[in-house]
């Protein structure tokens, strides 16, 4: 039979265990709204029981318990959900990045509207029609020049906006690279702290929550694989890339002596296309490797650079085909209607297309008639202007114009005006632009749709995660009440034992 003092000990242990449990509960409540926090529970277990050999009996009715202790404080977390969340985060990041820029491109094109390029193209051809019926009026010629100028200004402005979007994307990628490197450094530090705590035999719950949160954030930027190592350490491996020797590229290593890589980004470094180049370079002096993340925002932003280039290319094709077709019919090599405003680059692009300054200065120099030159054309002959107006419905090889291999001109023997024959594989200029806008719209719509789907998916995963790890205040409150009562009961036992001791000490001997 144990003594009263041992009973006191049991109660003290009980109080201390309940107090720890209350501490954990209060920590949970305090962190109810902390991002990435997983609720923790204090696991209680009985202390080692005490066998009671006595002088007169070696056989005891049973072992006597010695109280309670907190065996561990654990966080409640489903690491499989983490894995899923990170995979979906990657896809969401990718399409969010795309959508962000595609919507911007869409804003640049501003279609369908009555102020965009497609309307202006129509107005240019209309003005040629009007010129064809009254070529003797300088006003109708001025309208042609001004409408054409409005079109070229709009094309120039769209092109420049796309160019600045490309610069913006460089800026965003650079920002992301800085963020990613900072996250990786934080992860590295956390990893070491976690290993140290684990080696000391404790559970670094809050540090692990922090590490998981950082990994979640990292997963929206790029794709990676987590490799668990000893003492709760984690190695992070970049996916979709190998180093110069074909080995894995690690971003974070548990073993601090192993080399780890960091990202770097150089805008416009690609020699063929002028896209930015993302590279991974390790800290052990290895050579840098080019890197395109498999998923994540970085991938989205990088792929969008190519999209912007595509759309610039299509604007260029459009500008060039309008210029080439009008110039061909205008048929004046010394006084072409559309010229490049950039003296260094004679090839017409959307960025440099402009109406010849000579024609802007003297609108009467437009050759509207059938004569070989403006001077040869009769005052009211608008046949050449009519031929240009009719280009509206001619199917040009707009798609192939960049090659410079397409032949546009075919001289109609009955008049001196060159005519352009429709190509069965071609498109009208307005049709080509509509097509471009259509393609862009479909791409944007797809990015938006996938992003929305990912949102739904992620929110359901997040719900599952919160369901497992989230703090429920009601639950914590009811736990708190239990712990409080247990604490009070233990205290009651102490005061009871105190009374008993009083009986023994003060009551037995009067």
């Amino acid at each position, binding site marked *: 039979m144990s003594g009263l003092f041992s009973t006191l000990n049991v109660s003290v242990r009980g109080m201390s265990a309940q107090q720890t449990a209350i501490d954990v509960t209060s920590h949970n409540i305090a962190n109810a709204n902390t991002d990435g926090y997983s609720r923790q529970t204090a696991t209680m277990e009985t202390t080692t029981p005490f066998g009671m050999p006595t002088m007169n009996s070696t056989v005891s009715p049973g072992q006597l318990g010695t109280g309670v202790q907190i065996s561990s404080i654990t966080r409640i977390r489903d690491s499989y959900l983490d894995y899923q969340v990170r995979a979906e985060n990657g896809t969401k990041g990718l399409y969010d990045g795309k959508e962000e820029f595609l919507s911007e491109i869409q804003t640049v094109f501003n279609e369908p509207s009555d102020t965009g390029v497609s309307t202006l193209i129509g107005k240019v051809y209309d003005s040629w*029609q*009007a010129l*064809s019926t009254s070529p003797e009026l300088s006003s109708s010629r001025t309208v042609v020049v001004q409408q054409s100028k409005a079109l070229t200004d709009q094309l120039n402005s769209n092109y420049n906006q796309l160019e600045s979007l490309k610069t913006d994307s460089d800026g965003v990628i650079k920002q992301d690279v800085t963020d990613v490197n900072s996250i990786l450094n934080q992860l590295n530090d956390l990893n070491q702290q976690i290993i140290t705590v684990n080696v000391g035999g404790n559970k670094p719950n809050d540090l692990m929550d922090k590490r998981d949160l950082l990994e979640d954030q990292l997963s929206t930027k790029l794709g990676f694989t987590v490799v668990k190592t000893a003492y709760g350490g984690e190695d992070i491996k970049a996916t979709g890339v190998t180093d110069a020797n074909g080995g894995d590229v690690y971003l974070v290593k548990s073993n601090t002596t192993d080399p780890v890589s960091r990202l770097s980004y150089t805008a416009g470094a690609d020699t063929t296309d002028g896209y930015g180049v993302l590279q991974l370079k390790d800290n052990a002096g290895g050579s840098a490797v080019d890197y395109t993340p498999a998923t994540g925002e970085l991938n989205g932003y990088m792929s969008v650079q190519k999209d912007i280039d595509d759309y610039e290319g299509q604007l260029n094709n459009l500008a060039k085909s309008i210029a080439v077709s009008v110039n061909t019919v205008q048929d004046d090599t010394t006084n072409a209607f559309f010229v490049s405003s950039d003296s260094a680059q004679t090839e017409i692009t959307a960025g440099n297309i402009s109406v010849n300054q000579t024609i802007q200065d003297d609108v009467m120099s437009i050759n509207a008639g059938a004569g070989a030159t403006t001077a040869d054309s009769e*005052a009211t002959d608008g046949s050449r202007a009519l031929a240009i107006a009719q280009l509206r*419905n001619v199917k040009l090889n707009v798609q192939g114009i960049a090659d410079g291999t397409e032949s546009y001109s075919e001289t109609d023997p009955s008049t001196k005006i060159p005519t352009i024959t429709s190509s069965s594989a071609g498109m009208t200029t307005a049709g080509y632009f509509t097509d471009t806008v259509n393609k862009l719209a479909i791409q944007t719509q797809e990015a938006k749709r996938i992003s929305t789907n990912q949102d739904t998916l992620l929110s359901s995963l997040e719900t599952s995660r919160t369901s497992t790890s989230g703090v429920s205040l*009601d639950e914590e409150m009811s736990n708190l009440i239990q712990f409080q009562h247990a604490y009070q009961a233990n205290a009651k036992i102490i005061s009871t034992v105190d009374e008993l001791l009083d009986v023994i000490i003060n009551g037995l001997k009067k």
Partner: protein
Amino acid sequence: MRITNKMLANNFLRDMNTNLNNLSTIQTQLSTGKQINKASDDPAKASKIMQIYSDIDANKQYNTNITSTTNWLDMTDTALGQVGDVATRIQELLVSAGNAGYGADEKSAMKDEINQKVGELSQILNTNFDGKYIFGGTSGTTKPTSSAVDEDSNTQLALTGAPGSTSKLSVEVSQGVTMGYNVTATDVTDFAKAPATETDPATITDLKSLLADITTNLGTDTSDSTTKLTNTDLTGIKAFMTNVLKLRSEVGAKQNAMTSAQSRNVDQNTNMTTILSTTEDIDITQKAMEYATAQTVYTASLQTSAKVLQPSLLDYL
């Protein structure tokens, strides 16, 4: 499944966001009256809308072309009518020239009148419309004819012969359809291809020579000249009149063609506008219903969530 307070709050926030998004979409649609505000809202519809806008725009230009061409043709018709009137008067005078009782004085009076008529013809052929001489061909800023008094004090009609004076003007009236619409002064004066009768072809084939011949013949009071007046010249003026009539009927046919082109154009425009409207515009009733539904859902979610999110065990401890 374990439900926590944060889940409730998160769900509410997400659903509220969805509801507000729906409301915002419907609000934009209702306030703009358009189903599509960005191409990515519905790419297929957007490209169709752009196509129709472009077609309507082109069609409007064709309409303008048709209207101005119709005016031109009306003007041409009036002018040709006047030419016909003058020719009729000349014909009357020629017929009366055959009257045996007419002496030199009468013929001289006739000559004076015809000289006047020559000047009038020249004026008619120089009709100017909208800054252009309608019988001037592609040289529309140069007078196609002139009249001058010669040493016999006869008025002579002359073609100025500007380089483009015989050229045709054409206009596009609908996609790919171009029409020549002008009559040149040469078309009017050169009546060679229109014999007065099959058996009695005109020997003089242009108006200038015919009028000169008439005034010369009227000036010389001989029986030979009188015969010429009543034969060759009369035949000639008849052939000229036939030619003018032929030109007028051509112009009339073109006017008809323009009228039908215009009505086709207007029909097309109406059709395309209808298609555009059904593609682009919202159905107000439908949207109003959708708006009412969306608003009800939003209000319901606010009401429920406000009640669900508020209480906790703490209220009862």
